[in-house]
């Protein structure tokens, strides 16, 4: 972040930290525009898990989260047996048959009533019809089963109103993430030859750079013909984070298959081993934090491409517009679809040094990804995005709060060794000392009693600085209502 920008942010903090308390449950749209603090937007898109399945049981721990409690909802099986939403999701082995999630399956799962309103009661019978155990489709992970996701969700910002773009499978939904549209297709295959370069080409034309990082064994979904300069492997992502050479936009793909070279699938697609994906989430976060400058200038979105046939209780909304252009809207005739209907809700966690902990209810879908990137690096998507969905998509930048960069770490018990390792001995850097002083100044304005009790001049080592910053941020968050 530019020096001026950081000071300006600190100047805003007195009001921002308090105002943030109000955005904890309902995020008010802030003024649209670029955020000078953000130089890198990183998206990690996993596979085929619904919001309730991954994050729903965090409801008691994140006030305002639209999740579930055991017994809140049920679906009926083919014989009328009721299957209630509950915990008990297992890491692997409950989806012996991959839950169907093609267009026709999702419509069955939505359980459209006579009035045309989704009842969300067709998931169990859909899975039963496909040969699976209907009880498993209603099960959710307890937060402690997913330590990385839960830690990041509690420490940063959960978007609990994020829907997949199309009530269908991987391909159209991932196209919305890359192109802001699926070009009118609800069932597009995985070879996208005639789509152009999407957000990556748009960035390139604007003198910016976007890149897809993938696992060597399983490759990248759909974007393989994009062009050599737009790709790196996951190891390149780690190195780019460490060196501070991340591109403006980075799309990270997990490993999609268990490979002969012992690489384990990290995409969390049923029936892959879910903790491997959870560890991968932490790895991506950890990579960003390996370089403080990279971290201070980044925004990471963790999101799933679609629900994978697994239960969620929130009916997908219908938009007041479709896709394509007003003159030439995208439509499917067989089967009928006008692209106003969103797919099932999926998990989305926004991780950045500039978000406050909590939950945001702004409506997002995958077109929000290229819209956000466009907004930040190119210009107003209403002018620069080609099609309606992306033009109108809410952007994530409005969720960034006017706070100093958060350098505190989430509580992640599996990796305490790492947390200890980064607090290395040795004298504090000039940047750390400056940051300490700025935080102390902010404390003096907002929490003068805390400021009087702390002494920035006593900070001498990296460990001192880390502890001072963590303490100051904790005090500020407490003041803002996040204790």
């Amino acid at each position, binding site marked *: 972040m530019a020096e001026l920008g950081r000071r300006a942010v600190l100047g805003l903090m007195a009001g921002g930290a308090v105002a943030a308390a109000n955005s904890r*449950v309902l*995020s008010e749209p802030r003024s649209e525009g670029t955020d000078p603090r953000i130089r890198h937007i990183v998206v990690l898109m996993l596979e085929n898990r619904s919001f309730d399945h991954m994050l729903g049981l965090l409801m008691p721990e994140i006030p305002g989260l*639209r999740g579930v409690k055991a017994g809140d909802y049920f679906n009926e099986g083919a014989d009328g047996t009721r299957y209630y939403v509950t915990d008990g999701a297992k890491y*692997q*082995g409950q989806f*012996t*048959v991959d839950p169907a999630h*093609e*267009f*026709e399956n999702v*419509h*069955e799962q*939505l359980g*459209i009533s006579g*009035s*045309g309103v989704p009842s969300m009661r067709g998931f169990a019978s*859909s899975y039963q*019809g496909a*040969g699976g155990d209907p009880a498993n489709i209603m099960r959710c992970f307890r937060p402690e089963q997913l330590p990385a996701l839960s830690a990041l969700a509690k420490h940063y910002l959960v978007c609990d109103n994020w829907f997949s773009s199309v009530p269908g499978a991987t*391909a159209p939904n991932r196209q919305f993430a890359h192109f802001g549209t699926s070009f009118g297709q609800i*069932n*597009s*295959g*995985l*070879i996208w030859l005639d789509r152009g370069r999407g957000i990556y080409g748009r960035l390139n034309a604007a003198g910016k750079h976007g890149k897809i990082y993938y*696992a060597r064994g*399983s*490759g990248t*979904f759909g974007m*393989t013909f994009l062009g*050599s300069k*737009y*790709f790196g*492997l*996951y*190891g*390149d992502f*780690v*190195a780019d984070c460490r060196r501070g050479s991340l591109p403006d936009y980075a799309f990270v793909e997990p490993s*999609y*298959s*268990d490979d002969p*070279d*012992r690489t*384990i699938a990290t995409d969390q697609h049923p*029936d892959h*081993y879910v903790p*491997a994906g959870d560890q*991968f989430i932490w790895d991506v976060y950890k990579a960003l934090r390996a370089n403080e400058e990279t971290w201070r200038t980044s925004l990471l979105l963790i999101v799933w491409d679609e629900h994978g046939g697994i239960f969620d209780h929130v*009916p997908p909304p*219908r938009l*007041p517009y479709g896709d394509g252009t007003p003159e030439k809207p995208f439509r*499917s005739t067989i*089967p009928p679809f006008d692209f*106003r*209907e969103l797919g099932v809700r999926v998990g989305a966690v926004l991780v950045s040094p500039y978000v406050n902990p909590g939950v945001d209810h702004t*409506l997002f879908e995958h077109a*929000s990804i290229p819209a956000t990137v466009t907004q930040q690096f190119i210009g107003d998507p209403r002018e620069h995005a080609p099609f309606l969905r992306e033009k*109108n*998509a809410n952007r994530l930048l409005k969720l960034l709060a006017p706070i100093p960069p958060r350098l505190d770490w989430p509580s992640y018990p599996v990796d305490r060794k790492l947390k200890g390792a980064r607090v290395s001995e040795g004298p504090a850097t000039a940047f750390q000392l400056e940051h300490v002083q700025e935080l102390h100044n902010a404390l003096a304005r907002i929490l003068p009693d805390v400021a009087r009790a702390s002494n920035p001049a006593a900070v001498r080592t990296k460990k001192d600085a880390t502890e001072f910053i963590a303490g100051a941020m904790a005090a500020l968050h407490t003041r803002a209502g996040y204790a």
Partner: protein
Amino acid sequence: MACALTCLPSWTGAQTLDAPAPLPEAATPCPPQTVAPHADPLLRSLVTEWALLKQDWCKLMRWEDTWPRIQYLLVDVFTGPGLHPTGGIVVPDGGVAAGLALNVDWNTNAPTYQRFSSSVEGRGSENGFWEVGAKVQTLLAGYSERGKSPQVTLFATHLDLPRLPFYGLGNETPQDGRKLFGLRDTGVAASVDVPIPFGVAVAGELAGLWYAPEVDTSFGSVFNETTAPGLHTRTTYVRPRVSVAWNYPDRGVLYGLSSSALVSYGFYGAVAGGDFSFSRLEARWNVGFGLDPRIGSLRFASRVMVNDPQSHSNVPFYLQPTLGGADINDENVLRGYSNYRFRAPNLVAYELNYERAIIDPIGIRIFGQLGKVGQHASDLGFDHLKSSVGASLTFRLGGAAIAEISFGWSEAEGLHVYGTGNTNNLGGLTAGLRGVF
């Protein structure tokens, strides 16, 4: 629910909720298939696959967007659990092969270490080469080191290779001295492969191996036990093998410095067939440096193999490694020579290549290769190395070459053309590709 409808900002040109979602009531052609649940994994795999194929076919016929529907059909025809057609080769010079693979996931509500996937595959070629195999594997996902997990594999294979070329042993064999021999190769093995920190993986394997060479009178009139040890001998081995592999960085990279190394040691203890026990030590070291694809990447690869017979023993000629074209494992070394061209108990090979994009997805690679075989390990010096140079047109996907047509040239044999490739990055179509071979 109430909050879902009300806790949202009003629409001011940005997305918002319009109304409780009224959906089109129009009937959707090809409604979801119903599949009866099956406890038996094999039956479950087959009926699920059948339902998917029926649905794919229905949608291909009745839905819009034919090309995407064809892709989905191909995905379900070639990948995932169930019965699938397979293709490729059995070994180089064996012709084009095709066959079937049956993949079953033994997924139950069980701990990870009790979960197995199994594959059975058979394929035969136009030239009469064929192979069958079965593999049972479990990835112990409960432990992972940098994205990799321990793997336990049990496998059995049988290959019938009726006509393999043999030019004699050594570096100076005449090209027109080529004779053909047959080999039946059967093996059963159990292996454990464990990743440990710092990019290192250790592996251990115990195998039982049976080899049955078949030579005709033409072959026998030229070669004998001295010039082709074991030509009339069927051998049976018990082979323990250990290996250590190292990769830097431990996650793959396209850019910057990368390196990998492998050292393996196996002892072929002959339990039947005569004095043919020997040990095999193999080492590989690769190093690469990748720059922007328009500038290119440079890679150096090296390999040495030493087969050391026990006292009074020999290494059967059919187990001695080869250089030239492609070897029995389809590894290309000295592309300017014929497949299997040089054979001896010991081998050393080097390659330096440079690859870059020209116009995506086309790239070019230029390469130079050196190598030779030797009767003794001390023969593997830098003198009298065979050489081959050439160029390849590469097909690049995802920023890396995944297939290439190579034009290899050597002074002795002139031009040879090879096609090579892998299934990485074919648009996600092959993420579920399985089988034994």
